[in-house]
């Protein structure tokens, strides 16, 4: 029964009671004094009921306030806004590779990330990775700190990261969870030319110049590539991963990124390293890359180009003074859960020589996402040029 109906019901009861009294006294015709008394009695009852009603309304109001307060307390613990200051997540990927002379199963990456908000404007983010399942002496894998940095909001549109962070170069450097890209293995250009996953230690300043236009500048440790052996001057061999990293020569990275049109990302990065070898034989180096990532309805396209120029006589002798690569990857979503892709890549870590040492790679494959955070992949891969083989890759990846 609603409170607002109470006075009406009470009035009805009073009328009924009054009618009954009147009927009882009809036979003896009440006097004016009796009627006056009756009215006075009824008025007292009305006053008493009014008082009761006011009291009840106050109680209802108090109860409402108590319920409201209780709900607010409970919700403050449930609400995502009031989530724990420490968050945990992760991703991982399992690969099966069937090359011409080799079949291999590898739990390639198992990554856990932990974040913590010190307050609303300062936060910590980290990723710890177990690569190839087992780490240790004579084991194929490694335990690596992939990222660990403090991020501070300086103003509404500017941020500063300090610590070990991923380079703002290429498409998959920062967003590398397996559910976000096609193909079992990451693309070869962002492996052999841009040595993703590539983390350096230093400071990174980001600014949103206007909505969808971002500028990044980072001052950080550089690579330390070997200057002899067969891996001389290869960027992937020079990653120091923040492990007692030699910082005799610094590196500087800048990026401009445009994302103001839905579905489109255009970005260009430039890096200068004072000495990529950090040895007695200085080798200043520059890396630049540009990419486009575009998605329209069910169609998507990714394309990237990257190039190193290393100023060193020994690098020149090996043809590694210039190293470059590109890839183009169109894809098509058959449904929300199924996607097809093709990728054509070419890279050359000896592009400075006069012979054709480029490797061409073609991938064709399919991704299946049973849920958004889980993916199964299959792709066929064919290498030609300086490397001639083909194989089949199967993979499973997840993130949470």
């Amino acid at each position, binding site marked *: 029964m609603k409170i607002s109906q109470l006075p009406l019901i009470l009035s009805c009861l009073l009328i009924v009671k009054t009618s009954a009294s009147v009927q009882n006294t009809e036979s003896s015709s009440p006097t004016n004094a009796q009627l006056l008394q009756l009215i006075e009695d009824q008025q007292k009852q009305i006053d008493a009921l009014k008082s009761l009603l006011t009291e009840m309304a106050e109680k209802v109001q108090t109860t409402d306030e108590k319920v409201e307060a209780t709900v607010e307390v409970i919700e403050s613990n449930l609400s995502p806004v009031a989530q724990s200051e420490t968050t945990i997540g992760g991703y991982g990927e399992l690969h099966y590779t069937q090359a011409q002379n080799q079949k291999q199963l590898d739990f390639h990456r198992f990554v856990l990330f932990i974040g913590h908000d010190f307050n609303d404007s300062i936060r910590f983010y980290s990723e710890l990775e177990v690569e190839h399942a087992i780490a240790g002496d004579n084991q194929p894998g490694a335990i690596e700190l992939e990222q660990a940095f403090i991020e501070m909001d300086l103003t509404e549109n500017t941020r500063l990261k300090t610590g070990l962070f991923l380079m703002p170069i290429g498409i998959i450097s920062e967003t590398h969870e397996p559910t976000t890209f096609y193909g079992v293995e990451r693309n070869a250009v962002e492996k052999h030319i841009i040595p993703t996953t590539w983390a350096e230690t230093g400071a990174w300043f980001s600014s949103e110049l206007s*909505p969808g236009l971002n500028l990044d500048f980072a001052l950080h440790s550089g690579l330390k590539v070997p200057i002899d052996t067969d891996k001389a001057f290869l960027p992937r061999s020079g990653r120091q991963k923040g492990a007692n990293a030699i910082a005799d020569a610094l590196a500087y990275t800048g990026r401009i990124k445009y994302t103001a049109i839905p579905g489109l990302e255009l970005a260009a990065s430039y890096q200068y390293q004072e000495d990529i070898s950090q040895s007695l034989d200085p080798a200043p180096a520059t890396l630049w890359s540009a990419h486009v990532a575009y*998605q329209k309805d069910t169609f998507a396209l990714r394309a990237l180009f990257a190039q190193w120029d290393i100023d060193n006589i020994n690098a020149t002798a090996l043809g590694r003074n210039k190293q470059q690569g590109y890839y183009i990857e169109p894809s098509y979503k058959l449904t929300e859960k199924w996607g097809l892709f093709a990728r054509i890549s070419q890279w050359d870590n000896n592009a400075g020589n006069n012979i054709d040492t480029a490797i061409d790679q073609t991938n064709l494959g399919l991704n299946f996402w049973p849920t958004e955070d889980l993916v199964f992949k299959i792709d066929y891969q064919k290498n030609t040029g300086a490397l001639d083989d083909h194989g089949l890759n199967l993979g499973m990846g997840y993130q949470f």
Partner: protein
Amino acid sequence: MTIMKTAYLNLALISLLLFNCQGLSAKTYLSQDEFVYHVTEQLNRNQTNQPVVFNKKALWLKSDLQKQIKILLGHPYPKIRITYRWSKIDTRLVSIWFLDEIGKERPISFAIWVQDNKVQQMRVLAFRESRGGEIAMPAFEQQFDANFLNQDGFFDNQIDGITGATLSVRAMKKMAKLAIMLHQWQAKKEKIIE
């Protein structure tokens, strides 16, 4: 020379760290009241002869509703009730929902105006994630305008994503779908034929 470079690096790092950190919280684009005001203005300008007034109401998330929400989001909505605004134009329900969802780590706050089983307008009120703030750009938000779910549960007009902001985009799509679902739930409860 090397010592000088190291000193220069240290100096640069310290200078940047000492930069005044202003204790910012979320990047706030719009308040709930501002959104309601904008919606009211648009409705009064275009759709009605009578001035539209939005009332506040709470939708209690009982277990049967939470079950449906869990199917949609993959998790229950972490509240006991959702406070929303509603009004009626002729016999049609107009509702405005204020919903939060985590993208990768931190909640993003959204406002969604639903009418005729469509998202009429959706805006990011506050963004707290490190990356993916592009979802608050008008060009992206406008993809949700006048968008509705087809029979398969997908948006009739495809939402083009943002590279590197997959999780923020996903959170926004989920909240748009949830708002439509809650609108339909309330319309059914109040026996309003949409």
